[in-house]
């Protein structure tokens, strides 16, 4: 890529930051050019972000309808999924799934809730409720 053709697309996914892209000058020397974004990359990032957002939204509805425990929503709200939550807590997936059951949710011991709270960067109290008024 030529130094003059490095995209400067002001991508919203860069949030006003610039990334270093390597490009060549007429002598074939390749060096860093700061880029404000590329719409191609932006499209892919946005796709991933909207997929995460969609998962959180669906989870929110399920929790609201009483089909899942609040933990299920919070997992997606911090951009995790069952695999990442399992890895970051050290809990087996099947045991986490039990905690998604609203009827068993209140039985979770404090010690276990503390591990969730630590992994997800939220207080135990926050994890126990569904935030009001989202996605409406």
């Amino acid at each position, binding site marked *: 890529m030529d130094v003059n053709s490095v995209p400067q697309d002001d991508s919203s996914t860069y949030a006003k930051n610039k990334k270093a*892209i390597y490009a060549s000058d007429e002598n074939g020397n390749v060096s860093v050019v700061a880029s404000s974004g590329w719409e191609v990359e932006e499209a892919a990032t946005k796709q991933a972000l909207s997929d995460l957002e969609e998962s959180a939204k669906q989870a929110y509805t399920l929790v609201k309808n009483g089909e899942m425990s609040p933990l299920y929503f919070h997992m997606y709200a911090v951009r995790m999924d069952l695999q990442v939550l399992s890895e970051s807590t050290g809990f087996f997936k099947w045991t986490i799934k039990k905690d998604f059951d609203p009827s068993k949710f209140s039985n979770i011991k404090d010690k276990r809730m503390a591990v969730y709270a630590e992994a997800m960067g939220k207080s135990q109290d926050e994890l126990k409720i569904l935030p009001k008024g989202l996605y409406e």
Partner: protein
Amino acid sequence: MNNFEHSHSAHCESGVMSAMLRHHGLELSEPMIFGLSSAMTFAYLPFLKLGGLPLIAYRNMPKSIIKNIRKNLKIKMKLETFSNKEKGQKRLDELLKEGKIVGAQTSVYWLDYFPEEMRFHFNAHNLIIYDKEEDGAYKISDPVFETPQVCSAASLTKARFVKGVMAPKGLLYYPTHVPRDIDLKPIIAKNIKKTAKRMLKTPIPIEGLRAIRYLAKHIRALGKKDKRYAKLFLGNIVRMQEEIGTGGAGFRYIYAAFLKEASDIFDKNTTLDEASKLMLEVGDEWRDFALAIAKSIKPKKEIDFNGLADRLLSIAENEAKVYTKMLEFNGK
């Protein structure tokens, strides 16, 4: 206090190593670090899923740049991990007090200076901590940012101690002895050969050119899958290639920069100069491939799976020419 200077890099690990060694009197560019650690590759591991999508990588395993640079340049480095947060933070403060600059492995998601749009759960992000402010926040030189950043102590500690895949365990690293006057020539020659051979000759289909062809095969078969999944699968390729700080075209441009620098070091060696040009061209092909994907993942668009797969096969063929050219280099 030290007089550390921040510089803007494409990739976190090569950027940290380049800045850290420069601080210790060894001037090596980011592409040189990248090339000398044989960091470029292509890997496709369909059975290893992240967020439901297969692992695709354009560079070697995290931490391999640090380890290979240490080994290849005979740099003495100390790597420390910690059993708990308190010890980890205390040790960091001690090192900073000694005036050291310290490399650290972190999770991108918990670093508070990262904008929302860039925060994902990736646990092997490298940065340099070079000072502490009076209010307890840390001064960070994050190579992928244009300017130095500030990170709160709570956020940095959280980012250093996440659990899970590639958990950093608070990893801190810093050189204890950096040799001067290194004869780069034999190291360059060796690593050019190593990269070329790995790309051309890895006998299993998950790495090298075979992995590119393997991915092409799976793209062709995506037509049979759910369309939403197919689009996420394709978008994931672009993200690994462009979003995660590759310097463009999945590290191909940065490697072209390395080949050009290597050519200069070998008195304008023409073989390496040609290899650099070929690599730049292949890089452009990767960018075109990403562009074609971006067009096809738009809503309501039909996807030409065969067309995308054919592009990849063409890329593999043209990359082969670069590596063959690199093997022609006799190291003199």
